[in-house]
């Protein structure tokens, strides 16, 4: 539904000069724009919203043409009907939470606007903030009000620019679930900018990795995190393997918690989280050991048989993607590759210590 081709030169001449050149297409669900800071993610959002004008390109949402450099069209941001949530601190400080949310709500019927805002506050569990001013709200509450303000305008597209960056860790997980629920309820596309793997995996139906102004890989978040296609993507997404699962059971005596990812079961250190709750688990690629034979006498709690899917050689490292139900990135030295004679298609065993696995916020 959103179809954007954007070319824009940023900061010409200086050290941070960057040319953004992307084609973004999204129809439904949550699309994640993932990249490190300075990659141009925010600029893409701002161009779609009309805050900045691209040098060249065409942006349209359904029938509406937002921008077309060749036809000389540049729709003002007031008419674009996008909901925009900033990183932080853009609630109007002189208005209460409710006034903030009502501010942009459609004027045609005051009453229905009020009802809509009340409903949004209910969904976001912030009814108690209505009469309070932004400086009296926590980071999480502020962002919920900002979400309500954007949604009250009945937007056709939501743009979220790292909305959780100023929210404390304990609130993030709940807010993520709420954003996901709101998206499913509103049925409009969400474009979500982040550099957090956990947010990307939990929220994204689709993900685009941005590096130096270009899209370097597209796919589902898990697919990209655990099997980056090229070295630049690998460096952007980091060496972390990320996967989601549900807490299956605890064994506090042994100090073990078992997580079911649907494709395999993984043992990690005991964490006491609610059984059945969703978790994002990470392990760094250099913490996984590869073995050609099935070791049984080992302290590693997780031993999975798998097959090598791909190998990227990068300076001294070899980034291997091994599939054992789910894909794992494994980082080993060239010496190890030579000694074990590893090739694409080789059968290997992955050894993962429970202690090397950690739950991501």
């Amino acid at each position, binding site marked *: 539904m959103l179809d954007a081709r954007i070319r824009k030169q940023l900061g010409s001449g200086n050290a941070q000069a960057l040319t953004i050149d992307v084609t973004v297409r999204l129809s439904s669900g949550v699309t994640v724009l993932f990249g490190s800071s300075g990659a141009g993610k925010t600029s893409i959002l701002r161009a779609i919203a009309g805050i900045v004008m691209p040098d060249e390109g065409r942006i349209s949402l359904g029938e509406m043409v937002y921008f077309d450099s060749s036809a000389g069209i540049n729709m003002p*941001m007031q008419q674009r009907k*996008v909901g925009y949530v*900033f990183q932080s*601190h*853009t609630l*109007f*400080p*002189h208005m209460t939470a409710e006034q903030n949310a009502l501010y942009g709500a459609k004027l045609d019927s005051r009453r229905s606007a009020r009802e809509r805002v009340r409903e949004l506050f209910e969904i976001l569990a912030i009814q108690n903030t209505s009469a309070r001013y932004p*400086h009296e709200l926590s980071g999480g509450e502020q962002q919920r009000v900002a979400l309500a303000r954007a949604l*009250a305008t009945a937007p056709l597209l939501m743009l979220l620019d790292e909305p959780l960056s100023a929210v404390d860790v304990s609130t993030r997980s709940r807010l993520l679930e709420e954003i996901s629920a709101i998206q499913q309820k509103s049925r409009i596309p969400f474009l979500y900018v982040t550099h957090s793997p956990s947010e990307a995996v939990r929220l994204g139906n689709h993900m685009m990795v941005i590096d130096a102004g270009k899209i370097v890989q597209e796919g589902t978040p898990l697919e990209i995190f655990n099997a980056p296609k090229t070295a630049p993507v690998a460096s952007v997404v980091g060496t972390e393997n990320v996967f989601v699962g549900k807490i299956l059971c605890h064994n506090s005596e042994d100090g073990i918690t078992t997580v079911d990812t649907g494709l395999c079961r993984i043992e990690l250190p005991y964490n006491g989280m609610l059984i059945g709750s969703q978790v994002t688990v990470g392990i760094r690629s250099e913490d996984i050991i590869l073995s050609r034979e099935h070791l049984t006498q080992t302290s590693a709690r997780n031993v999975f048989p798998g097959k090598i899917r791909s190998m990227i050689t990068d300076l001294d490292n070899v980034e291997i993607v091994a599939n054992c139900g789910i894909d794992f990135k494994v980082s080993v030295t060239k010496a190890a590759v030579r000694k074990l004679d590893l090739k694409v298609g080789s059968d290997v065993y992955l050894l993962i210590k429970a202690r090397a696995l950690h739950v991501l916020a």
Partner: protein
Amino acid sequence: MIWPALKLSLLVVSLATLVISVAGTALGFLFAKRTFRGKDFLDAIFTLPMVLPPTVTGYYLILLLGRRGLLGKPLYALTGWTVTFTWIAAVIATTVVALPLMIKSARAAIESVNVDYEIASCLVGKNELETFFRITLPLASRGILAGIVLSFARAFGEFGATLMLAGNIPGRTQTMPLAIYEAVVAGEDEQAKWMALILTGISVAVVYLTNSLSRPKRRR
């Protein structure tokens, strides 16, 4: 001569402050938010009365508005009326001299408002005018209020340009500062003293009142 001078001063200053508040805020907004050709030149022109001696500003105003002036001549030919030596001339001279202070204050106040608030307002569909009145203006209100007080104070003390354009006609164009000057020159020390005290009292009261009004609200 105290009462007519005081009455005239209050009339002239309140009218001038009214005009200055509106025009100064509008010009401050223009300079803060817009880029256009000749902006720096226009800015310099509007700043000039702040740096020129008021008598020189008054002189230029005569060249512009006098009976043989650039605008004054056609006006006189059309209506047979000229602005010089009327109380309106005092309002004009006062306005021109005090306006730069308001423009500078308003511009600084408007520029200090985080642009993201204004962008957020536009993104939820509000046009520039509504964004200005409902977001920018309330958030810049303290600086703008300070500007109004400053220009009021400057207007109340205006002497030179008023003398040039409006003259010093008791009961018609003689404002308080002019009356004080005349009293001192004529050796009427008692009158000069009282007028100076009244002028000081009013200025102190206004500044004090605004300060207490603009103090940040207690957090509820």
